[in-house]
């Protein structure tokens, strides 16, 4: 059956990829908890991944919060539920939009950069050179990036949540005519701790996914400039898809009983 052969082949290739990524993740976690740990490199990567992503995340979440206020106002006014706008903005931002938008933006910015840098190191034999200089490439290249992703993404998302809520407040008060005191009161009245915490847990998961996929595709890139380009594309695409899939899984773990 020549029709089914390619389908089966694709499925087997996919399973092999899943296996390789799992082994890669296992090795990374193993190296994360055994010395030596390069703290200097972790701080450097936290600056690269976290600090320099702040403008992108701030812009994204600001406009997301603003448009959310605008859209929910025009929708909710159909059944006179305008007062729910502040609550909708804060819950949507903390639970969903903050982590997912920040995750996707960072995947594009950081995941691509990691894959390109490590991929170039692979094809120019710099990773082999690390080994000959008695340095484990996992500990030196992969672990600092993954730890930095795990730590900085929740911080980025927390800042993004605040900026997003502020965006909603600006539109609500200045354009939709809400009273500023009651808008803020409505924002916090129905907000639960779990809304924020679940969003931060998602952010940590996304941070792990983005840095891991960037490192994985870079580490296994082959064949010069084209291979590095392919690795970059694969890192962004696979981390974006995994972000959306894991977003559903984490949401289900938190909010269905």
């Amino acid at each position, binding site marked *: 059956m020549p029709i089914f052969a390619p389908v089966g082949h694709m499925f087997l290739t996919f399973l092999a990829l899943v296996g390789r990524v799992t082994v890669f993740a296992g090795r990374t976690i193993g190296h994360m908890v055994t010395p030596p740990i390069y703290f200097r490199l972790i701080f450097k990567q936290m600056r690269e991944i976290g600090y320099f992503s702040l403008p992108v995340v701030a812009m994204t979440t600001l406009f997301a919060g603003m448009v959310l206020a605008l859209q929910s106002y025009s929708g909710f006014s159909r059944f006179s539920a305008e007062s729910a706008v502040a609550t909708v903005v804060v819950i949507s931002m903390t639970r969903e939009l903050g982590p997912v938008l920040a995750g996707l933006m960072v995947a594009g910015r950081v995941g691509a950069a990691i894959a390109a840098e490590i991929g170039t190191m692979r094809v*120019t034999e*710099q990773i*082999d050179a690390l*080994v000959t200089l*008695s*340095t484990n490439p996992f500990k030196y290249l992969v672990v600092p990036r993954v730890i930095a992703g795990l730590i900085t993404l929740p911080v980025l998302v927390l800042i993004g949540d605040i900026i997003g809520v502020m965006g909603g407040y600006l539109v609500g008060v200045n354009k939709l005519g809400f009273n500023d005191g009651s808008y803020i009161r409505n924002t916090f009245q129905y907000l639960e701790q779990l809304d924020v915490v679940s969003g931060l847990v998602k952010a940590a998961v996304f941070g792990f996914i983005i840095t891991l996929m960037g490192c994985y595709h870079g580490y296994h890139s082959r064949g010069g400039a084209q291979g590095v380009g392919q690795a970059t594309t694969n890192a962004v695409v696979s981390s974006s898809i995994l972000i959306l899939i894991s977003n559903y899984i984490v949401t289900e773990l938190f909010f269905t009983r």
Partner: protein
Amino acid sequence: MSTTAKISLRNVHKGFGPKKVLQGVDLDVAPGESVAIIGGSGTGKSVTLKCVLGLLSPDQGSIKVDGVEMTTASQAERDAMLAKTGMLFQGAALFDSLTVWENVAFGLIEGQGMKPAKARDLAIARLEDVGLASDIANMSPASLSGGMQKRVGLARAIATEPEILFFDEPTTGIDPIMGDVINDLIVKCTRELGASAMTITHDMASARKIADRVAMLYQGKIIWDGPVADIDTSDNPYLQQFVAGDIEGPLELDLKHL
């Protein structure tokens, strides 16, 4: 001989899918000896080197470094082997996120845990050993010429005073005069360290200058192995064709037709 050899390869096989690259390589490098592995492109010279370093694992056969079997070595044994080796890569493979002196001092700081200030002084001394002025120490490797990058790579390889040195195509991609400078530096550095050296090259001028002994790799096996003085008097037709650079001869070239 095999018990005292610094590096000893026995019946090493390595394939990639259906392609059999190494098909039973036997080679010894004695302490303090410099061996050049010559052969055409794609004959498995780099694969041999990577198998010895543990960057690739052979499919079968035995590789011993200082009598320790590397194919079944523990991580600790492998680390101990790497701690006494240095390698100069074909494209120098300098870390472009670090400065020149940080590259040279890398093995000292990360591998041996030396204090950066002391490692910097040593790195600058090494740079002077390979004829580079200390004013390039703070530059980025990307802003150096190819010949300078190779010399920085050499300085990095010898910085930890290794017992074994590996050179991957040391003269490829640089002009003949700079190639000769690199050859002289390699000879000088290996002598001063008393190190064993394994060089892979297809540059006969380089092989003649660097090596005590030459081994020719063809179709996954060592087909000739002898002192460098014998390469012109050998009656091995494969070796003669390679040394002379003839198109006509017994070597099967990877060409359709010319």
